[in-house]
């Protein structure tokens, strides 16, 4: 039963990407019949081959629609942080004013997906770059371009992002 | 009707930035520097291909850009594993 749901979810996702890529291919509709058949076959194969690898144990929670809504809303604070990050980097490129270091902090996230979201967000936001994530303790090692505190809390380094990652994926 | 020319011009400008990155690829003191420069060039190539797809009116170029993005990601992961030392 579990394997069937895993297969169906992975295949549905693969089919969605395929259908987006072949949009407007049909002469009478959005998709031609051959594209639909080929897409279904390919999506089934992808579901069999990758379902077990991509699907984390206990990953059911991502099937809840409100998490997807949060993931879309998350774009707004992320984009704002990216804009600030780029102005910040531009300023440092021009003035050469840096004080780098690698700091350790523990945001206390448990699932792989939450850690992935937080690590990628950290890389894109002001002055920080994820260097390593400890698998069993969940500690983040972050290269910080302007160290203001030798033993920072997660809020010092990346603001509200750990809370967002927890809301989306835990 | 909107002109296609600005997209081609932007693509040419990005190609110029690609040369700047290739400079770091040539002089970078360590292998990691070269790998970072290569990663930057890959991103610029993807963006340039999408811009050229709009500028020349060829959607195929955008498809090529998608495949290039995925392949360059895999090659970056392999280079990173090589930099780590050891293939384990």
């Amino acid at each position: 039963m579990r394997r069937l749901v895993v297969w169906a979810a992975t295949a549905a996702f693969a089919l969605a990407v395929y259908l987006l890529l072949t949009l407007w291919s049909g002469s009478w509709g959005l998709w031609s019949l051959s594209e639909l058949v080929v897409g279904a076959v390919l999506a089934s194969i992808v579901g069999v081959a990758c379902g077990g690898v991509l699907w984390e144990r206990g990953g059911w929670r991502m099937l809840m629609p409100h998490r997807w809504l949060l993931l879309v809303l998350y774009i707004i604070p992320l984009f704002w942080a990216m804009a600030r990050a780029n102005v910040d980097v531009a300023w440092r490129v021009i003035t050469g004013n840096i004080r780098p270091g690698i700091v350790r902090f523990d945001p206390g996230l448990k699932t792989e997906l939450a850690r992935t979201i937080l690590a990628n967000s950290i890389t894109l936001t002001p002055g920080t770059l994820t260097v390593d994530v400890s698998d069993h303790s969940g500690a983040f090692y972050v290269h910080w371009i302007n160290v203001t505190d030798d033993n920072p809390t997660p809020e010092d380094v990346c603001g509200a992002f750990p809370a967002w990652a927890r809301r989306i994926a835990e | 009707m909107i002109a296609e020319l600005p997209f081609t011009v932007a693509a040419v400008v990005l190609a110029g930035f690609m040369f700047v990155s290739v400079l770091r690829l040539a002089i970078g003191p360590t292998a990691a520097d070269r790998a970072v420069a290569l990663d930057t060039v890959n991103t610029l190539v993807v963006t340039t291909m999408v811009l050229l797809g709009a500028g020349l009116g060829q959607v195929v170029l955008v498809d090529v850009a998608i495949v290039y993005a995925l392949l360059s990601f895999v090659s970056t992961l392999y280079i990173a594993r090589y930099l780590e030392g050891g293939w384990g």
Partner: protein
Amino acid sequence: MNALLYALLAVGALFNGLGAVALLRFPDVYTRIHGATKCTTFGSIFSIGAVVLYGFLQGDGAGGTLAVHALIALVFLLLTNPTGSHALARGAYRGGIKPAQAVVDHMEKGKR
């Protein structure tokens, strides 16, 4: 509408150029990854965003195909770029490159 497209293209080119300059100007691998990844990702959002807008403004099937495919390329770029740079930073650190001018380095003493 044309002015908006030109503005998007100009901002995208500006940030992409900033990434290339950061690559030349920063002193060590980690700071170069900072500049290169952030600026090229952010610049690509604007450049490809201009293409998406252009495709939707065409209004027909060909323009729509262009817009959707460009959007998919943008999503792949946004997902793979930070992951790849994280892999490079980790590989560089484990390969023995120390951050230059570092004031603090928590990875040095007992970890893992």
